[in-house]
């Protein structure tokens, strides 16, 4: 029997569901993310055999087993390296990296910043639950100051990374943030990530009901949804808050963020910042909004959506471009010529 290709246009969500038992805890935010990813997949128009999911180790990194695509559940922190090999060797594949805040930012931090600067055309989904789930609840590089965990019985004293700021600082060409429970938003961010040519970095805030339950409830509960989500849209002013109480963000003379009330009917003040995914300073500014520090007044909203999206040469294209150029050389690939280079001589 020979292999059979799937008709791309007819792929459905089910085609991306593997036969493996899903082994996350009941209520884990990972389920929702999996469902959205499986939903978005058929819309990409890529046959599933051309899709590869690569992960490290962690609860989140079990992800590839549940996707009926090619998959590599590698070792802790190394998914970006493995994925780089997969993509560079086969630029035609659609390559996805799934990682966690521990896997991607702790042990795997170096590979992450390097893949971001190189800008391969891959998609990175970082499930940030601000804790190590698989190893049963130690703090992670995104855990907040003071958090009590098994390894921080008196509270975390390590300043957490701001994931988006780190990615921007590393030179990422696409940085976005979304939340496990915001299905529509998650979908739209996944679409944007796929559309971006270059490395797409998506941080997904994810609830771990077992070891860090409710860590994002401040922005996901009813109040939070209304008052604390800054939904970014390119070219649109930065507004948030419920209909009845809209607010906007502007820059003070000292280049500090200010939250001001806005009445959309009366027109939006010129001062309100307009989002521009291609403006470095704005992206960094958004990343530096401190939405996590408890009790800040007024509390800052969490920027959601695409913080940055810029075009830059794509790594694998540059690499293969050089190879293609070199192959134009006379005698390219001729081993007999190669062996005779240098100072060769004949003994007869």
């Amino acid at each position: 029997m020979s292999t059979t290709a799937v008709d791309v246009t007819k792929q459905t969500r089910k085609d991306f569901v593997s036969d493996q038992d899903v082994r996350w805890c009941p209520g884990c935010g990972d389920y929702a993310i999996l469902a959205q990813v499986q939903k978005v997949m058929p819309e990409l128009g890529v046959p599933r055999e051309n899709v590869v999911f690569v992960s490290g180790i962690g609860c989140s990194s079990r992800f590839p087993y549940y996707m009926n695509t090619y998959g590599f559940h590698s070792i802790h922190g190394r998914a970006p390296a493995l994925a780089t090999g997969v993509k560079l060797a086969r630029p035609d594949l659609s390559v996805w990296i799934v990682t966690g805040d521990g896997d991607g930012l702790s042990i795997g931090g170096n590979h992450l910043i390097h893949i971001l600067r190189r800008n391969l055309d891959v998609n990175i989904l970082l499930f940030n639950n601000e804790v190590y789930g698989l190893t049963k609840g130690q703090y992670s590089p995104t855990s907040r100051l003071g958090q009590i965990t098994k390894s921080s019985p008196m509270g975390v004293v390590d300043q957490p990374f701001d994931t988006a700021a780190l990615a921007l600082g590393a030179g990422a060409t696409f940085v976005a943030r979304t939340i496990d429970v915001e299905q529509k938003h998650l979908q739209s961010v996944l679409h944007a990530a796929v559309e971006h040519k270059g490395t797409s970095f998506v941080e997904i805030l994810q609830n771990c009901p077992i070891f860090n339950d409710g860590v994002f409830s401040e922005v996901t509960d009813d109040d939070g949804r209304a008052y604390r989500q800054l939904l970014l849209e390119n070219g649109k002013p930065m507004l948030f808050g419920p209909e009845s109480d809209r607010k906007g963000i502007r820059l003070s003379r000292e280049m500090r963020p200010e939250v001001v009330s806005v009445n959309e009917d009366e027109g939006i003040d010129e001062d309100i910042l307009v989002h521009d995914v291609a403006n470095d300073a704005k992206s960094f500014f958004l990343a530096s909004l401190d939405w996590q520090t408890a009790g800040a007044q007024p509390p800052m909203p969490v920027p959601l959506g695409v913080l940055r999206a810029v075009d830059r040469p794509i790594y694998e294209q540059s690499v293969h471009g050089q190879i293609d150029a070199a192959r134009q050389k006379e005698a390219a690939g001729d081993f007999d010529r190669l062996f005779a280079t240098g100072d060769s001589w004949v003994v007869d």
Partner: protein
Amino acid sequence: MGAPSGFTSSDKSGRSTKPVESREHVVIRFAGDSGDGMQLTGTQFTNQSAMAGNDIVTLPDFPAEIRAPAGTLAGVSGFQLNFSSQHIFTPGDEPDVLVVMNPAAYAVNVDDLVEGGILIADNDAFSKSNLRKAGFEGNPLEAEGLTDRYRLFSVPITKMTVEALKDLGLPQKSVVRCKNFFALGLCSWLFNRPTDATLRWIEAKFKKPELIEANRRAFHAGWNYGETTEAFAATYQVPEADIEPGRYTNITGNKALAWGLMAAAAKADKQLFYASYPITPASDILHELAAHKDFGVITFQAEDEIAAAGVALGASFSGSVAVTGTSGPGVSLKGETLGLAVMVELPMIVVNVQRGGPSTGLPTKPEQSDLLQALYGRHGECPVAVIAPSSPTDCFDAAFEAVRVAIRYMTPVIVLSDGFLANGSRPWKTPSFADLPEIAAKFWTETLGFHPYLRDEDTLSRPWVVPGTPGLEHRVGGLEKDYNSGNISYMPQNHERMIRVRASKIERIADELQPLEVMGDPDADTLVISWGSTYGALYAAVKELNSQGQPIAHAHLRWLNPLPPEIGELIARYKRVIVAELNMGQLVRVLRERFLVDAVPINRMQGQPFKTGELVAEIKGLMEKRA
């Protein structure tokens, strides 16, 4: 007025008119400051000698610093060449000729020179300040007794070079830089080397016409100095060796290794993917491969060795012939990824160009102390195949074979080279690409009954399925997998079964190894065993011992895991087994354990290859002790 370029010999042809003495072989060492271009000089002299038809073996020796302060002992760089009318196997124990460009080079090297050997020194460089930097009170060239021990030629190399170039209008620094070509010219004259290739090389190497002219003049000046002055009474000739006909090129181990990988990938009809992080003495493999994009080679300079291994493994998953090259410290970092490669059973080559350890150790010096790490240096039961090339040219064949085995058995293969092989060179009889064997490497596409850990009956290898193959979507990973489905399995018996099957797979490689060759005295009662780069020194030592009537045989192990199947029986035939290695005794442990043989070690850990003479003495000592 500077001398125009050209030879002063009567026929102006670059052939000396002085009397010629014949020698079977000569060992020459060039030594100077890192900035003096000694590697270049040595390489050129080597090429001349190869073209003159000699057999050759080289031994470059760099300092760990890029360029330690000029004139200091730490900055001395050396290049040794053995050229011969016979087949030779080592760069020679001690130089017959030593060229020193400054007092530090003299200090570091003079004790190695054989008594009665030729010592050529640039006496201009023996200035007060240089002498001080090298730790001398007075000028050792003027020391009492020196000329009794050595045949000293104290030559004002710098001055004459400056003189020869003076009307070229070059800055002083550039002028002085040419003095190594004076030395090369002088030595070319002294040993009747063909000069055309060097002159052609100068033209190719230097872009600016005035530099071409300068180096040419310096070269001629050196040559002419020998021919004209009365300092040297005669020249030496090492006749052509009896070398198999063919086209030859002088090749270093690193270059041969790179080419071997390229050729193997081409013969497997796959893309070669080399992921690496620079490290001495392995970096030249990266440089060589990066220069061959015209062969479709992908090189990837990773952020570290772990990434390099991971990238290679990813590329292997995607269907490339994936290689990651490094040296000891890098291997210590790749262990975890190598374990993953063992678990997912994908082909992958790890090249370890060994250097002096532990830790940063002696980064530019060879050693063979990573063998046990190659065998056991990962957590869990984690067997990989291990092969070690025996000479710079064998690096080509070993790399080629490593690729073949990695694909056939779907396994990582470690190639254990070392700094001596990497930088040392030998003439290589270039094969015709068409004559190299094909490497079977078909991706699996059959969906019927497929699972990712289906095993081939003969090799026990699993199928190589690459993404993009419809209907074979599957997941691999580092957790234990079920023998019958490839799914994750924590079942007790399954784990043991998988451990055993991974081990058996490696053992099966033994079935197709080339039979072990036993060299030396066929009636010997003593067997000397070598592996890796020490082959040449051991071969030469045993030859010498045999010629002295000692009943000794020699076997060389190229595969270290698995061992050749006949080794057990072979060992049992001898009264004495000696294992010589550049470490504290690593292979000897393996052989003792496996075959319960009271094998005794000969060890050296001095950052240098074995010397034949030392080996001869030491083996003799052991024969007497254990008679």
